[in-house]
């Protein structure tokens, strides 16, 4: 303390790492439920959808039904996990008041988001990986484009973690944190063809579904598995990138104005 002060770092990697570790540590405290939940739900989906429905409907677009639902299952959990972890991570310090420390620290907006979103996306991708492994116990899943699949997983996880981050700042309480994922994201996922092909829908529902952005995300991910989907992979990528850009822009605006962060 008597030493002359060191110049502040140009990029606060220590700070990003501290936030990231803090968040990962929080996940570790609930590690067993965090692992058990995806394993159990995945198994249940296979028992219900795979056996009950799959026995009547053996193939969708030439793919065995059990395998067909794996990407949708992964996306469903990825959306839920990223949104919830991103939201909870920033909402908690606002709720307890510990946000004072973050606001008084030499952290830029980018560094703060990197720490929170990085951790939320990491956890969500771990859950997605667990689902893939569990699914392999029931059905045979081949990934046609593994590198693109991984890259897409990262992009979607980051997008929804950012979306969660915005939600965590916007929400005035814990109910609001739950409401958006439950009332918007999950229904759109089910309606977006997580467990069926859009081609199976009668008109006008097929056309209506094409206005559901989630349908593009699911189909994009499915394309990385099977090399085929209901919409073109480029359209999927465009929708994902647009959603990512919207979330990023909102986060940028939040930090620029201090919306619900500062007085």
């Amino acid at each position: 303390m008597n030493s002359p002060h060191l110049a502040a770092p140009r990029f606060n990697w220590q700070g990003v790492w501290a936030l990231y570790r803090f968040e990962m540590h929080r996940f570790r405290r609930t590690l067993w439920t965090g692992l058990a939940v995806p394993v159990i739900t995945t198994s249940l989906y296979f028992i219900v959808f795979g056996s009950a429905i799959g026995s009547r409907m053996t193939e969708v677009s030439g793919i065995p039904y059990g395998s067909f639902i794996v990407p949708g299952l992964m996306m469903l959990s990825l959306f839920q996990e990223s949104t919830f972890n991103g939201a909870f991570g920033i909402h908690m310090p606002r709720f307890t008041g510990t946000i004072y420390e973050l606001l008084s620290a030499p952290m830029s907006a980018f560094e703060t988001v990197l720490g929170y979103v990085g951790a939320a996306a990491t956890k969500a991708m771990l859950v997605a990986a667990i689902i893939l492994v569990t699914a392999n116990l029931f059905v045979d899943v081949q990934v046609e484009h593994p590198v693109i699949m991984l890259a897409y997983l990262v992009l979607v996880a980051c997008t929804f973690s950012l979306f969660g981050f915005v939600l965590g700042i916007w929400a005035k309480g814990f109910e609001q944190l739950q409401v958006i994922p439950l009332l918007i994201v999950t229904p759109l996922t089910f309606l977006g063809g997580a467990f069926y092909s859009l081609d199976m829908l009668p008109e006008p529902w097929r056309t209506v579904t094409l206005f559901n952005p989630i349908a593009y995300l699911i189909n994009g991910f499915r394309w990385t598995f099977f090399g085929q989907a209901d919409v073109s992979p480029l359209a999927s990528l465009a929708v994902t990138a647009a959603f990512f850009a919207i979330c990023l822009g909102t986060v940028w605006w939040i930090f620029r104005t201090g919306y619900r962060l500062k007085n």
Partner: protein
Amino acid sequence: MQPIISIRGLEKTYASGHQALKGVDLDINRGEIFALLGPNGAGKTTLIGAICGLVTATAGTVTVDGHDNVRAYREARSRIGLVPQELNTDAFEPVGATVRFSRGLFGRSPDPALIEQLLRDLSLWDKRDAIIKELSGGMKRRVMIAKALSHEPEILFLDEPTAGVDVELRRDMWNMVRKLRERGVTIILTTHYIEEAEEMADRIGVIDGGKLMLVEEKHALMKKLGRKELTVQLAEPLAAIPPELADWKLELIADGRELRYVFDRHAERTGVPSLLARMRDLGINFSDLNTHQSSLEEIFVGLVHGKRAA
């Protein structure tokens, strides 16, 4: 010497429309202990928040060691440690981990020896693996101090550090503050306990209604505003103050057994010798005399009420 913090024309109007700071100008000297005094709602926490980055100022500038706290926020903030007024802590984190986290957040590389020393100094070493929510309120406050000091700040803000703290912890805290000052740390604290400011501070600022009413070196303040009170215990009670003593504006108290006279001890003529002489002439005998110097608290109350009334 250049001040370590320089505040110019600082204003804050909250979204509610309430103006909490009305143009504050203040320089904090390097290495001093500065006490900010003011009644509830005076704007103390808002002022600290505007310096530390929790509150966006409506107008004005703050420079910390020459760095603008908005444009060069990294440089400014990395010099500051903040212990807020409220006990805001994580619930489930262990003590040691939360202090290491704070150091990282401020961009400093890990230093286990320094953290250990800090926890020992604050009597938290035994509790390093304890979960914060299991600690008592006083210990939580110590954890917050440890967090604020973990990155070796040059400036420490303590917003009402002794609110709800027992006598022992308060003494420990002041010992720590003195030690930090010896190491060259600048300390800005707010308090409602005026004796604390009186005991600890080098300089005192009084804030009320978002305006700094005065900033004064403590001794100068005590001298300048230090009124003295003379109490005369009478041998025989008086029914009324004799008109011959009207010039002194005395007060008759304790059922006529005591006379009170308030004077300025730095005035050329205190009026004490002449009062005593006149009393002797009138044949009013007294059994005892004592004088009392007004405390900072009395000065402060007088100041705030006087200006408010004006």
